[in-house]
């Protein structure tokens, strides 16, 4: 049946370091897209009647602002706003990228462009979500937990570490596990959801081939799954941001 699901990992080598070529390329596509998207939004900035793109960006900012003020005093959360807005947009667009069909039509393969293994990067039925690579999600989760620690110490000083020994010092290991599990769950929740979604897309598209039938029957389940993946991608972007906000809120708010 489904035999060749295991994809070969495309690696770039630099000195003795290795990089996931596909993940990095897709990340840069997302970043480029976001830069263009935001540029369009702030091109004609006005405090009067905003244009469509500006409206979208303002809506996102207001949305995240509300998340922040739900979790902590807005004074403390204000510097976080630009980080969290970028985060939710980055994760959202990353999640969506894996649902977009391979718009290069395998042209790199066709013309045999092998520079940087581009032919292998743009291979297969759809593009890839950067968030379907555990390196990306771990990276983002590490940034989140670093922010938690940093802001906790910034707002509470040494007192921040007090909560590790509450209610009694014996609880210290549990608090440490709690702290470590936060980035782990953040990272693997996002990675698992998106990676599984992409695997399932590939499986659905391989289905007619595996059963040796005409390709069209895959269209309906694929459509359904793509629609559901949009939903999942949105939810996961939201969840990641909300949890990051909540963790930071816990760290900076005085508990009595």
């Amino acid at each position, binding site marked *: 049946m489904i035999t060749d699901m295991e994809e070969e990992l495309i690696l770039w080598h630099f000195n003795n370091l290795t990089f996931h070529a596909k993940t990095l390329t897709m990340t840069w596509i997302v970043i480029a897209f976001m830069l263009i998207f935001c540029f369009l939004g702030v091109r004609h900035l006005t405090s009067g009647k905003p244009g469509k793109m500006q409206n979208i960006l303002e809506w996102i900012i207001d949305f995240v602002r509300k998340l922040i003020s739900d979790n902590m005093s807005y004074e403390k959360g204000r510097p976080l706003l*630009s980080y969290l807005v970028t985060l939710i947009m980055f994760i959202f667009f990353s999640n969506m990228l894996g649902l977009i069909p391979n718009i290069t039509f395998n042209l790199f393969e066709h013309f045999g462009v092998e520079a940087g293994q581009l032919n292998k990067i743009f291979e297969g039925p759809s593009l890839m979500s950067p968030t379907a690579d555990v390196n990306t999600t771990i990276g983002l989760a590490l940034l989140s937990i670093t922010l938690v620690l940093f802001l906790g110490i910034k707002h509470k000083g040494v007192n921040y570490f007090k909560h590790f020994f509450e209610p009694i010092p014996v609880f210290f290991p549990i608090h440490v596990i709690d702290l470590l599990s936060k980035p782990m769950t953040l990272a693997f929740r996002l990675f698992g959801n998106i990676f599984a979604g992409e695997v399932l897309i590939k499986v659905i598209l391989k289905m007619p081939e595996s059963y040796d039938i005409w390709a069209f029957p895959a269209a309906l389940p694929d459509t359904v799954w793509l629609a559901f993946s949009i939903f999942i991608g949105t939810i996961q972007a939201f969840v990641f941001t909300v949890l990051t906000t909540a963790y930071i809120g816990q760290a900076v708010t005085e508990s009595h």
Partner: protein
Amino acid sequence: MDILHFDATLVVQIISFLLLVWILGKFAWKPLMNMMEKRRINIENNLIQAQEERQQAEKIKQEYQEEMRQARHEAQDLIARATKVSEERTAEILALAHEESEKIKKAALVDIERERDRAILEVKAQVADLSVAVAEKIIRQKLDMPNQEKLIEQFIQEVGEMPC
């Protein structure tokens, strides 16, 4: 496992993302949020201004109402005063007319009195004249007693037929 392969990609992703945060923060979010803040202040000012204008309008309306009430009051006063004056004037005129009529009546009474006195005087004079004439006739005819009586009767009859 292949899918959980960690390598330097992690570092590149973190750096890329931080770079993205920095760029967007500097060139997109900051100006955008400034603009939103500006709009917020703008709207706030507009609201305050609208509030002030409404208060002003309220004040003007109250002033108008006050003026209206005053004007109505004055008009009522004026009407009341005019009514009073006219009533007084009516009474005055009536009194005057009454007085006048009284005067006329008195004058008429005096006239009547005078006319009557004159008439009486005239009648008296005529009676005197006639008495003289009767006496004259009696004396002239030298009549005996029965004739005398007849004559007197005749004379009285004549007097009755006389216009006086």
